[in-house]
């Protein structure tokens, strides 16, 4: 242990190794796909895939042979992170069905809930709810009417 109490022992960079493995797989797949391309279209993917595989092999070798300090583990709640991704996916999936306005209002409110760490008071809930309505509605008006961007329509406008 160091004077600051932090662990100083080097640990293998398992996430880095996984990244290198994924890059090797991606490069291999690109080389396989490139075999069916014309010469013009294949030369660049082959070059990049080869460089990527070579760099990934070097990285994997370095990680295995000379253990490095593992990247810092993310702090905070993994559950909230997953919940945010789930909300974003649902938001995007709902847009063509429910329309931009309804999907975005629901997505916005759900994201607010994910980002909230303390319970709302009635006053806070009313204020932030109105703010959510104003922000979503404001952006909708700016894009749909101001900039002429045709946003998805559904149950609601």
């Amino acid at each position, binding site marked *: 242990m160091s004077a600051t109490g932090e662990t100083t022992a080097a640990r293998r960079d398992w996430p880095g190794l996984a990244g290198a493995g994924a890059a090797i797989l991606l490069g291999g797949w690109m080389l396989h796909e490139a075999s069916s391309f014309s010469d013009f*279209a294949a030369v660049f993917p082959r070059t990049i895939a080869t460089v990527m595989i070579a760099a990934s092999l070097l990285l994997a070798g370095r990680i295995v042979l000379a253990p490095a300090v593992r990247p810092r583990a993310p702090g905070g709640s993994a559950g909230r992170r997953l919940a945010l991704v789930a909300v974003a996916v649902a938001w995007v999936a709902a847009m063509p069905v429910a329309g931009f306005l309804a999907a975005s209002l629901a*997505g916005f409110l759900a994201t607010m809930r994910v980002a909230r760490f303390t319970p709302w008071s009635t006053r806070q809930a009313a204020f932030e709810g109105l703010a*959510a309505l104003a922000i979503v509605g404001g952006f909708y008006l700016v894009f749909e009417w101001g900039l002429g961007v045709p946003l998805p329509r559904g149950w609601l406008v």
Partner: protein
Amino acid sequence: MLSDLLAALTPLNLLLAVGGVVAGTVIGALPGLTATMAVAVLTPLTFSMEPASAMIALGAIYTGAIYGGCYSAILINTPGTPSAIATTFDGYPMARRGDADLALTLANLASVAGGLVGALALFALAPPLAEVALAFGPVEYFWLAVLGLTLIASLSEGSLLKGLIGGCVGLSIAMVGTAVVGGDVRFTFGLPGLLGGVNVVAALIGLFCIPVVIDLVAEPGGHMEMAESGRGYRLSEALSEVRGGAWNLLRSSSIGTFVGALPAAGGAIAALIAYAEARRTSPRPETFGKGAPQGILACESANNATVGGGFIPTLVLGIPGTPPDAIILGALLVHGVRTGPNLFQEQSAIVYTFMAGLLVSTILMLPLGLLLGRYAYRSIAAVPKTLLAPTILLMTILGTYAIQGSGDDVVVMLVLGVAGWLLGRAGFAAAPIVLGVVLGGICEQGFVQGWLIGGAQEDLVGMFFGRPISLAILAVIALTLLYPLLATRLWRPRLAT
């Protein structure tokens, strides 16, 4: 000529310049809404104006939009326009440590300085610069992209190999869709939505912004360090930084002007090259990427200098230097202004009034930008996280959708964002990936076209390594890559003794 220049100062033209800068800045600050979109959306409003006034309005919108991209780059790590990609490298770290106000003021001063250099170059150097720009062939573009890719070395955050792999991943993303040469459909998984490729703006919004939102909701702390109250614009600190980096500013503005004059190169490449040069020549290169003020000066001066630079081939040759220039070129045709070699003889009054208007708009950006920047900073800093996180998510989804009205782009943005967060956890930084995405198209097109032409001439080596401009760019690439080694192994020990 003097009367033409003074015509830019009529109350109407000044009002149009103010309105254009404000509108452009606000649109440019919204992720997904590029300078091209700002100009395109507002162009119809100019059809009823006099040609010179219309050009002033469009120039002001364009220059404001390029500048506005720095707000979201600094405050939420999402470049408002692709030109502001490099601004995130040091702007966001500065915001995180409580120096967002200083970063915004630096970006403003640099944008004004770069814009002025570009506009003055348009005045003084338009014809000779346009000729040099025309001498650029596919191979020169290829080497220019490679020069941009050398920046991977400085963006790798501790592991060059991981940066290199990240760059290759970015280049692979850029290859998705129909091949630029040959027309083959590549890496689309059979999805029609990917036939046109991965949109660069969607990719950079996903890779930069989604990881920020994912981490934002995970912890109860604030979004950024709050600055001490009453620090104002921190103009004296910023001016001191500008004085110390005057050469950096001039060099970056010159790079921006020149790259802007190259058709299809654009502000993102200019800013990346200027950033790489600033880092290479800095006495403290290790501070870049961690909140170095000189990094912001380099990229913001370069990207705004592309505005004046881009107008050089647009006005002199009728070849648009950047995508917004192409739209402005179309607007000029509507107004009966025919660009080309004879423009300066036949319609000099309009051209000189426009050039003066561009200078005025750039100068107006100083007070307007400072005011808007302060408002943006206060807003972002004061908004509670429960509103900030969903607002950023809303802006990313809406901004991505608005690029071409496609839900597929939004899906791609989300997928890349989540992948970017996972890769970030494994130590693969987002910046090299974005670099590959941005430079991939121009790099491949230049490489394959050069290969074809060289093959047809049976002189591949001469094609890639025998042309004067290519050799000059290669020399800069070699210097960029070898400079750290030379500096530590050869020069600094000598200096130490």
